[in-house]
């Protein structure tokens, strides 16, 4: 733990940096500036691509080449996919998948 002033300085630095990454594009393209068609095009295509990336990002630390060989993740992901294809209820898919995964990593694959 650091003293209060140093802690506040670190928090301010993290806050400003985080906001800067989120705001950067809006500073480059302020309200009165015409947005080039290429950027508009990126805006329509990027979100689905990002969500594809985030699925992989969430699973990035999965142990594939050592025990438990990604089996808990595989089972839980397939359960989420199956439940969602069946009922299309977001809460059910996320809730049941998460509880199942917790049981798997805490009790089954230990």
């Amino acid at each position, binding site marked *: 733990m650091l003293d209060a002033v140093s802690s506040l300085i670190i928090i301010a630095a993290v806050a400003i940096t985080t906001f800067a990454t989120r705001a950067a594009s809006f500073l480059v393209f302020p*309200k009165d500036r015409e947005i080039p068609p290429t950027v508009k095009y990126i805006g329509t295509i990027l979100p689905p691509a990002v969500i594809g990336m985030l699925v992989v990002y969430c699973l990035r630390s999965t142990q594939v080449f050592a025990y438990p060989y990604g089996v808990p993740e595989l089972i839980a992901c397939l359960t989420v996919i199956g439940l969602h294809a069946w009922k299309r209820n977001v809460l059910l898919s996320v809730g049941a998948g998460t509880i199942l995964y917790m049981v798997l990593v805490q009790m089954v694959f230990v």
Partner: protein
Amino acid sequence: MGEYKKAMRRAFPYTVPVLAGYLFIGAAFGVMFADQGYNVLWAVLMSVVVYAGSGQYLATNFFVPGISILQAVFLTLMVNIRHVFYGLSLVDRYNRFGRKRWYLIFGMTDETYSLICTTGVPDDVDEEKFLLSITLLNQLYWIVGTAIGSLTATVIAFDSTGIEFAMTALFIVMFMELWYRRSNRPAELVGMLSAVLCLALFGASNFVLPTMVLMVAVILLGRKKLDRTEADADA
């Protein structure tokens, strides 16, 4: 005020999965920060002014003697650089809004960004108020989760191992919801395959930036095949 109340009420159901996820991963941050010796006020302060999942996890390592501000800035930049691209895809939409859009920009976490991009705005509410409601509700869940984690860190020994899967499940569900519309599929596959390739090449802690660059490159090079704005205009 009535308009905002209505927007909040309409936005709430869409945010429930994030509520479930944020309470737990927010709590995980609260626990980690408490382990460093910081009480609930500090944890809440972080979640109010920073508001970033992996960014705040990483930041818990900065509160040790010897860390420089430059180091903290650089590491935060690396973990959050993907948000530059999120912003790029929303400039056209957000620049139509008033000054309050800066709160939308501040609150652009992975989950909020994904939710905003995948949720159709109901016809009977104002778009800006609806998006502000989603962003604010999500941040409130995050703050409450943080506080719960921080307060209970020393009291209850609840084994929360695996709780972070809530976010994986949420993104899988969003992925599927997009998949139901055929025109989204090529872009989703571009994102997923780019990430798998870069994960194999650069490893788990360094693959996000190369993935974003690769994705944008493929999106730009494949414009003829991927562009829906023109296809929609033709139809």
